């Protein structure tokens, strides 16, 4: 057997092992905090902060921002902001140990990196909008929501995966 220097770079954990650890982590999170994990709330806090800094009058009066703006409290002082920082640090640690850290665009050889980036932006936009309608994304609504058997969690999980399977054929050129 031949080993290349970088052959370990794409060796990931066994998915069932990763799933077991993730499940225990989510159970521990609920046990300690009474809530699950999330991944969009931190980004939302930065949106609210930006608008509140540039146009405080407007943010205080508009129906959506005003829900998150409080005179005595910085919107960044939020559980999910700290958790989001943790996600970035944790992923960076794992990636550095395996030598996966470098600036690059990952895409199928059949498309250009420009195409990849345009669709990445579009996908992010849709996730930003969709997560607000659904009150959570794949982490906060589907993963944490399903764990405690909430109706909304199961609707979101089935909605995201069902839609993606239904329309996968249309976007196949981007990936395969």
């Amino acid at each position: 057997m031949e080993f290349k220097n970088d052959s370990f770079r794409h060796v990931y954990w066994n998915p069932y092992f990763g799933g077991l650890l993730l499940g225990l982590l989510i159970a521990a999170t609920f046990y300690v905090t009474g809530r699950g994990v999330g991944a969009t709330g931190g980004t939302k806090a930065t949106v609210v902060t930006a608008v509140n800094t540039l146009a405080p009058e407007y943010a205080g009066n508009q129906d959506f921002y005003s829900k998150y703006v409080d005179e005595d409290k910085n919107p960044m002082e939020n559980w999910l902001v700290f958790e989001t920082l943790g996600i970035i640090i944790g992923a960076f640690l794992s990636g550095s140990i395996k030598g996966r850290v470098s600036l690059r665009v990952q895409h199928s050889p059949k498309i250009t990196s420009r195409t990849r980036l345009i669709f990445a932006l579009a996908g992010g936009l849709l996730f930003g909008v969709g997560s607000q309608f659904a009150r959570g994304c794949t982490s906060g609504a589907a993963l944490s929501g399903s764990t405690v058997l909430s109706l909304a969690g199961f609707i979101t999980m089935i909605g995201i995966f069902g839609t993606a399977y239904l329309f996968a054929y249309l976007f196949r050129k981007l990936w395969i």
Partner: protein
Amino acid sequence: MGPLTFNDIISTEWNYVIALLIGLAFGYILEASGFSSSRKLVGVFYGYDFVVIRVFITSVSVAMITLLYLDYLGFLDFSMLYVLPTYLPAQILGSVIMGLGFLMGGFCPGTSLTALAIGKIDGIIFTVGIWLGIFGFSEAYPYIEDFNNSGYMGNVTLMDYFGVNPYTFAFGFAVFAIVAFTVSSYVRRNVKEIQY
């Protein structure tokens, strides 16, 4: 008895430290499982890589059964855990939008953060997209507020809605997990390999 912070067993000053540590473990597990690679994630929709289904379903089953067991043993009050409120029309629309976003962008918000952390430019751009999407939603909020809040059903669980006990659902989910793992392994063996 848990949840600890609700019952003042852990003081709220520790909240942010705990948040950082939970996030750290979350990010580490996601990255180590390969969730920082969009081509690996999207494989679940084309049959060449089922890591998403395996990790996701395993973790939901493990967490669900662990929490129900802790409740059964009296270490935790399951009914005190936060249940996401249901707004049926908005949530259906939102998850359809997110499903399309997944196909186009190849990430979801948590996984794009792990990609961003290891320097993937597509992950950074996806995160910029999320930021703009939330901003757009917020700006449009006065026009979509009525729809967004329609069909409110409260913090409903499957138990409330179907009148079945949680153990039945947990058992059903575990059976579903085994079926999904078996079927996905079969599909994986019969789909052309993709190098990425």
